[in-house]
């Protein structure tokens, strides 16, 4: 599986029945492809839609029904539409259970930067500042490194998206949670060792107690420690 799909599939495990979820553009969008069977998730598009469905069949696109990037989408039965103030009322008012956003950097406190590179690229924050400030849970979906350099850094060199720490960072190498204000490695992806993750991360990571059990063989090998056996 390619790195992007690996990330998206892991994030889909965070979905629960009945959740209202907003997916950013890029990797986050792919999460919709991996919704676990048997649950219904409401996907919000911040341009004013809950119940966003897949891309329409050829010839079926409607110019008045798009995602936040202006690309044609469909609407599922039970969809609803609303103006932009209501859309962000849902985001800010505690109604959005989960948002998945791309990231340029995350600092040691778990704070995201994802909306500009001074002097180079100023796309604007769009809805990102509201999403991070307002969603109940914030998950960052990003590759672990860019051009070989860690994206999880001690001090962000880019403007923050919010002072609020994100809840979870999922990369093609690892799953890192922000616990008590500290970045905590809670899982490594299949075939990835803890040391590999640590080497690719500028911030010192706490190793979660559950990692030994959840990470199984890969983790144990990377720690070069004998199996402690039987841990659940």
């Amino acid at each position: 599986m390619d790195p992007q799909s690996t990330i998206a599939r892991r994030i889909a495990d965070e979905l629960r029945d009945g959740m209202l979820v907003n997916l950013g553009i890029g990797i986050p969008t792919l999460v919709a492809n991996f919704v676990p069977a048997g649950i219904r998730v409401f996907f919000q598009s911040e341009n004013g839609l809950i119940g966003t469905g897949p891309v329409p069949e050829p010839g079926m696109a409607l110019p008045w029904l798009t995602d936040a990037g202006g690309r044609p989408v469909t609407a599922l039965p039970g969809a609803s539409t609303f103006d932009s103030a209501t859309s962000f009322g849902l985001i800010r008012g505690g109604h959005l259970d989960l948002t998945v956003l791309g990231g340029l950097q995350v600092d040691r406190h778990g704070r995201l930067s994802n909306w500009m590179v001074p002097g180079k690229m100023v796309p604007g924050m769009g809805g990102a500042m509201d999403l991070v400030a307002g969603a109940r849970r914030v998950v960052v979906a990003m590759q672990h490194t860019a051009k070989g350099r860690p994206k999880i850094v001690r001090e962000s060199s880019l403007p923050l998206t919010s002072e609020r720490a994100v809840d979870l960072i999922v990369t093609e190498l690892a799953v890192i949670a922000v616990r008590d204000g500290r970045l905590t490695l809670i899982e490594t992806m299949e075939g990835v060792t803890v040391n590999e993750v640590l080497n690719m991360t500028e911030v010192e990571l706490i190793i979660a107690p559950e990692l030994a059990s959840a990470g199984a063989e890969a983790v144990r090998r990377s720690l070069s420690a004998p199996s402690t056996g039987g841990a659940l």
Partner: protein
Amino acid sequence: MKTISLQDAVAMIPAGATLMVGGFMGVGTPEPLIDEIVRQQKKDLTVIANDTAAPGVGIGKLVDAALLRRVVVSHIGLNPETQRQMLAGSLTVDLVPQGTLAERIRAGGFGLGGVLTATGIGTIAEEGKQKIAVDGRDYLLEPALRADFALVHAFIADYLGNLAYVLTARNFNPLMAMAADTVVVQAENIVPVGVVAPDHVMTPAPVVDYLVANG
């Protein structure tokens, strides 16, 4: 969204809870929920609503049954029993200008700390309020309001909880449906998913916690 019986819906409400109740002079108030609160004798409630309707009508039934400790409303002029309890000291009445009340509730549901309005400036409604100047004009800072429960009346709910209101029964209902920790809806009509077109949904399903089941 879960369906729930009328009895179980009201059983969730503890004594002393703060309720937002939709309706305007009883129009758009979920009467079955009100009747069940009276039957279960929930006490010491705080109600946030436009008004206390009239004796025997809507929120007026809660006043009649002396179940309210405090109301936050814009007027009580058509309910002499509310005025009687207020003068007797058994009911606290916080009067809020109607447009301010609507915005404070909306702010609570939309994740805003409050809004600035010129309404009430220079009147007793400004007492205790922070005054803030924007572009040389004074405004009152009116803080957000939230509740433990919102009791919402809808004309139509679909199986997912998408809501539509009808005519003047809309009033405070869609605002309150956003502004409480637990949102309970009583609908005149429950319909299959898709019967309400996306553009006609006035409250999106994900904000609804409980829909009171028929009979």
